[in-house]
Structures are given as structure tokens and as C-alpha cells.
């Protein structure tokens, strides 16, 4: 009997078919409808912004990451998410620089995949927010010709962009905060409002998230707890002072909340591992979002809420460890 090609490995000898690259690439693929929706609203500009940020991420990962790091697909997700969180009119070089910063300082410097404490896409965006506060808060109005650029996308680095002929409008959150104008919920749900590339159509994002949750690639507890928390706290503050705080539903469907709740607060690396921890994490993110939006200086707070809670992830993990089988009685006995 020929036994020369037999191997010896440690148990278990069977393995579930899901692999880390498969999870990552599926998440990346699930963003395609979101990207298409943004292209529908903002035209070719949104595609260009996403291309630029993704290129920045992939090149940086190739340069600083592990050997074959591109294959696991995590840099792809970071690039797509960063692009989706930027305004469609931002110059492409800025988007690419954000991608570089996100991967280099949000991921590679920590030790690569699985080691980073903060969401790399949000690190990239936070960097851009600080470095280019004007460009990142210039919101073009959706609609119009598909090939009409929504800003000076091809501006040279560090030259002042020429945004003369673009119609801009405030985001629903900005409108409410600075002008006390309430955008109808229907527009928010469908996404026909101003905002970031992917921060518009709540329906599409929810559907993609539901697909991922069904596949088991997304833990539904984070988004559900965030949405519930925003809904409850938002409605509560609205009840106290309707002039200052918009209703719970408005908060849920406006701004980057859907993208953040479904895709960024579910990044496995930077959120708590335990299910109980995910409820705590989501609840706190939701509360922070509402507090920043209502009482903070900025109209939008999803990015900072998630980044702040990322910092608490190790603590939440420690506090929400599961109770080991057979130890309940021991504690009672003591």
C-alpha cells in the first residue's frame, strides 16, 4: 500500500470552509451596491473618489504590510469604506493621501491585520478632517449629469482647488443644526440628499448589511444596538427640546450613521469580541453620536463616536468575558 504522501497534523482535522480572506472579500463585494447607489446619486465623481482612496490603501498595504497582505482583502475594505465616507467633490489626491494615512498609521504601524486598535478607514478620514477641513465639508448637491464632476477632483496636490461651477448644499444634519431646517425622512431613507459618497442611501446599506448578517460575516448586534440607542436617546432629547434635537428617526437615517453602524462598528478587529461587549459598544457609540450631534460643535459625530469607543474595546472585552461552564456554582459556594 502506498503511504508516502500521507501527512500528520494536529486535531481537529476538519475545518469550516470560511477563511479570513473569504470573509473580507465578501464584505468588500457587498459594498458594490452601495458604490453603485452613490454613483447613481453623485455620478462619476463618487467612483473616482473611491478609486483614489482604494488605490492609496492598496499601495500602502503592499509597501508596508505583510508579504501577500493584499490577498486577505482587508486593505480593500478600508479603501472602499474611506472613499464612501468622503464627500464626492474632494480632490483625488486628498482621498489617496487619506488612504495612505489610514493604512500606514491606522494599521501597519500597529502590526498589520488584526493588531490595530482603531478603524483604519476612520483614522484616514479623521486625518483628512483635520488636514483639509474645508474640502471635507464641501457637500455637492446630488443629481445632475453623470459625467459632470462634483468638484475639482483632478487638482494637483497642495494647489487650491477650483470649485466655482459646482452647486453645493448642506447635509441634512448641517441644515438642521445651523438653519433649523428638517429634511423629510423619505429623502433620507432613499438617499436623495447631500452628504458623503456612501452616506446617503440608508436602504441600500441596510440591505447589504442584512445579506452579510445572513451569511454570518457580520455580527448583527453592533448595528442593532447602535440604531436602537440612537433611536431611543435621539427621541428622548427631541421630546425634551424639539428645537435643538431632531427626532430619533431623523438621527438614524441621516449622515453617516448607517454606513458607520453597518460597516465600521462591525469591523471585527476594532470592536469587542464578546457578544455582550458588542451590545455595550453599540449602545455607547449610539449615545455618543447623538450627544455629539446635539450638543457638539460638529453636525456629525459618527466617526468620532466609533473612534472613541474603539479605544474602550480592550476594556469592554475584559469586562464582558463569558462565564466559564461549571463556574457559576463555584462562585455561589464562595
Amino acid at each position: 500500500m502506498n503511504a508516502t504522501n500521507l501527512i500528520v497534523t494536529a486535531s481537529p482535522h476538519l475545518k469550516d470552509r470560511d477563511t479570513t480572506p473569504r470573509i473580507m472579500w465578501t464584505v468588500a463585494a457587498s459594498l458594490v451596491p452601495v458604490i453603485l447607489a452613490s454613483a447613481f446619486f453623485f455620478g462619476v465623481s463618487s467612483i473616482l473618489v473611491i478609486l483614489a482612496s482604494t488605490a492609496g490603501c492598496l499601495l500602502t498595504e503592499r509597501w508596508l504590510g505583510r508579504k501577500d497582505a493584499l490577498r486577505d482583502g482587508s486593505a480593500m475594505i478600508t479603501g472602499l469604506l474611506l472613499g464612501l465616507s468622503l464627500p464626492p467633490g474632494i480632490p483625488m489626491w486628498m482621498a489617496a493621501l487619506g488612504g495612505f494615512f489610514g493604512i500606514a498609521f491606522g494599521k501597519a504601524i500597529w502590526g498589520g491585520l488584526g493588531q490595530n486598535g482603531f478603524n483604519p478607514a476612520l483614522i484616514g478620514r479623521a486625518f483628512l478632517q483635520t488636514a483639509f477641513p474645508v474640502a471635507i465639508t464641501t457637500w455637492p448637491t446630488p443629481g445632475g449629469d453623470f459625467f459632470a464632476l462634483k468638484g475639482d477632483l483632478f487638482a494637483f496636490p497642495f494647489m487650491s482647488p477650483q470649485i466655482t461651477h459646482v452647486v453645493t448644499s448642506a447635509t441634512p444634519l448641517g441644515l438642521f443644526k445651523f438653519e433649523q431646517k428638517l429634511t423629510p425622512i423619505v429623502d433620507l431613507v432613499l438617499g436623495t440628499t447631500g452628504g458623503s459618497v456612501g452616506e446617503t442611501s440608508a436602504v441600500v446599506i441596510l440591505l447589504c448589511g442584512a445579506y452579510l448578517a445572513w451569511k454570518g460575516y457580520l455580527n448583527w448586534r453592533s448595528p442593532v444596538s447602535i440604531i436602537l440607542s440612537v433611536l431611543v436617546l435621539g427621541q428622548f432629547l427631541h421630546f425634551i427640546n424639539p428645537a435643538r434635537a431632531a427626532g430619533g428617526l431623523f438621527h438614524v437615517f441621516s449622515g453617516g450613521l448607517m454606513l458607520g453602524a453597518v460597516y465600521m462598528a462591525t469591523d471585527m478587529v476594532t470592536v469587542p469580541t464578546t457578544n455582550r461587549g458588542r451590545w455595550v459598544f453599540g449602545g455607547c457609540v449610539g449615545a455618543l453620536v447623538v450627544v455629539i450631534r446635539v450638543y457638539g460643535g460638529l453636525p456629525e459625530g459618527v466617526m468620532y463616536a466609533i473612534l472613541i469607543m474603539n479605544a474602550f474595546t480592550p476594556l469592554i472585552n475584559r469586562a464582558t468575558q463569558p462565564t466559564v461552564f461549571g463556574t457559576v456554582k463555584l462562585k455561589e459556594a464562595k
Partner: protein
Amino acid sequence: MAFFGFAHGVHPPEEKELTSGLPIRRMPYPDEIILPLRQHAGKPATLCVKVGDRVERGDPVGHADGYMSVPIHASAAGTVTAIELWPHPDGSMAQSVHIKVDKYALQMPRPRLVPRWEGLTVEQVVKAVQEAGVVGLGGAAFPTHVKLAPPKDHTVHTLIVNGAECEPYLTSDHRTMVEYPERVHFGCRVMMHTLGVSKAVIGVEKNKPDAIAALERAKPKDLDITILPLTVKYPQGAEKMLIHAVTGVEVPSGKLPVTVGVVVQNVGSLAAIAEVFDTGLPLIERIVTVTGHGLKRPANLIVPVGTKLKDLLAYCDGVTPNAREVINGGPMMGMAVSNLDAPVIKGTTGIVVLTSDEVRGETVYPCIHCGRCLEACPVFLNPSWLGDLARVRRYQDMADEHLSDCMLCGSCSYVCPSNIPLSQLFQASKVALRRIQIAGAA
């Protein structure tokens, strides 16, 4: 019955249909029998034959060395040709007795090597079971007579019989329940009598309806035996999971099942008890599932203990060209065989031949903290965190995180998308920790 299962766990492909419908057949005697003196948990048997001795079927070749030990018996008549270190299925080398099988012997046993059961006192039954070399046939090979005499400071109220057989591929317990339900019940009767309990529960996974039906049909009228269908899930057959499913009680961490008043025994072991009292022969053969997509003719076989794996696989027409790994036991907790000269021993539940498509890949990715292992762990550990600790060798911290409660079921490694060998890390850590503790005590 309020509880039929447990939380967490995994669902590996069952692959039991390869052999679940095949009746148990007897395998012919091989040319040579290899009997390691260490086939059970506890102390190895002490040698009692020498080279050149003639042994008959059922004669002891090694005596029990103390209470935590059982004797080893010759599974075929023949001549002792060598006593030497020989590959053991666990990968080590073990002192083993080689017997050249006498092809012309009738293989008739000597009459009544084991006494009749009727009229024996409890102590005599325990002694007879030990003398017959009966051990748990579920894999761990714990001496059965020790379970028959639980510590006096505990009261046992229920006998739980493990017919879950949650390991993928294996069907030996399944076929035993379908074909020999009377033996299972008879074994139950012996154990209930010796333990002094009036209640027994046989837990069987729901994917074996024919086994449940056969057991129900053969149920004796005078005994309180319940057959409980269990959820199909791995590791349903783990002792603590089974106890939880049947009684709803969690066995305290670090304690034996007897502390909650139950004794767990595997159906195969019960059938073995019944068989030794029935035939008067000690435990010299067992039912082995020889299966896998890498094997040409899967089968459920009665195999003489000591048959070389090589001979066993050859009897099943050998392996296919894409066979990649031979597993002693089930694919979740079994060990890969490094030498096919190693024999079948009392604890060999099955031999599974996996193909190159099934074995684990080599690429390991970093942990992404997805939390799947937390949802898989049947004892609610945090394998992700324990794995991080293991890699930086913080063994003492692992002990504080309840490493000792890990039963190495492999559920965490099974689900890990990054293919991190968690259960291997934990096994190594347990060994390292024991070494530290011994060094600390010395």
C-alpha cells in the same frame, strides 16, 4: 425533559452515511497481532509472557498493575515472537507483545474466562470487569471497573449512557445500538446494579432514529431506562455537555461528574460489559468504523485488538490516490497516525482516511477577533484571548483564564477563519503548564 442540548458548539459535516447503513462484519485474523501493554488510562499492564510462549485466545499477556490498571489479553491463538518497543497509535513507542497468529488454530476460547454474572456480589462484579480488561470504548479508554465503584462520599442517582457519537464519520456506536440493543440494555442492567442506581438515561443524537427505535424496542420492562433524543451538534457527546443536556446541571469546573450524582458510560463499553459476561471472553476485540472518502471500501468491522492499521486498511481494499491523512479516532479529536504499523487498541473507535480536499490548509492568517471561537466553545472560554496568551507563553495567565476547563474538543480551531491551530496551542500549553507546576512543586 426540559433539556436536550447545550449552548454553542459547531456543525461539522457528518459524513456518517458512508457507513451508517453497513452491518457490522467480522474481520479475519491477521498474520500478526501487536499488543501494546499501555492501552488504557492509568498504569500499563505488567508483562506475563515471554518470547516463545504459546498463548490461546483470551489468555492474559499482561496483568493489571494495581487498581488503576487492567490486564491485556491475547486476541488470537499463536506464539509470542517478540517483546519490544513498537509504534503506538498515539505516535509514541510502547512496550508491545508480538504474537504470530496460528493459522490452523480453531481460535476457540477457553470456557468461561469471565464468571457468570448471576449471583455475583458488587465487589465480585467489579473484580470480574477489571479481570476482563474492560475499558471505556469511547476513545479515552478509562478503566470501566473504576467507574463501577465511585467514591463512597458521593451518592450516584443516575447512570447516563453516551450514545451521542457526535464525531463526524464514526458509526461504531450507532451500529452497536442498532444491531445489539439488548447488549446495551444488559450492560445498563449490570452497571445500574453495581452502582445501586434505579434510573438510567441513554442519550442519542436525533440523527440516529433507527438506533433510538431499536433501543426503545429492546427496552427491558423491569428497568427505568429513558432514551433521550439529543440535538445534533458537536461536541454533544462530551461528558459535561451530555450531563448538561440530560440533567440540566453543570458539572463544576475541575470536578468529576460524580459530584453531581451521575456516572457516564459509553454505549460501546456497555455492550462490551454485556459481551464479556455473555461469552465469558475478556475484551479482545472491538467494533471499529473504518471509513473516509480516502478509503476504497468503508466498513464497520469487529477487529481483533492488536491488528495493524496497515492490515486493517488493506482489508478495506486500501486507500485512494488522493488519501492524505489517516486519523485514529474521529476527525475532530482523533490523532493523525504517523506509522501504519501501529495496531488497533482498545480505545480505537474508528480509522478515518481523509482526502487532500478535506485536510486543513497550511496558511494561517492573523486573528481578526471575529469572535466565532467564543460562540463555538462549549465551555464558554475565550479561545481568541487564550490563543494570544499561548503565543506569548503566558501559561500562568492561561491557567487563570480556565485553561484547565478546555477539553480540546477542537470546535474553536474548526471555526477559526484564520486557521489558527487554537486547540493545538492549548494542548501544548497544558503540557507546559504541568511542567511548570511540577517544577514549582519540586
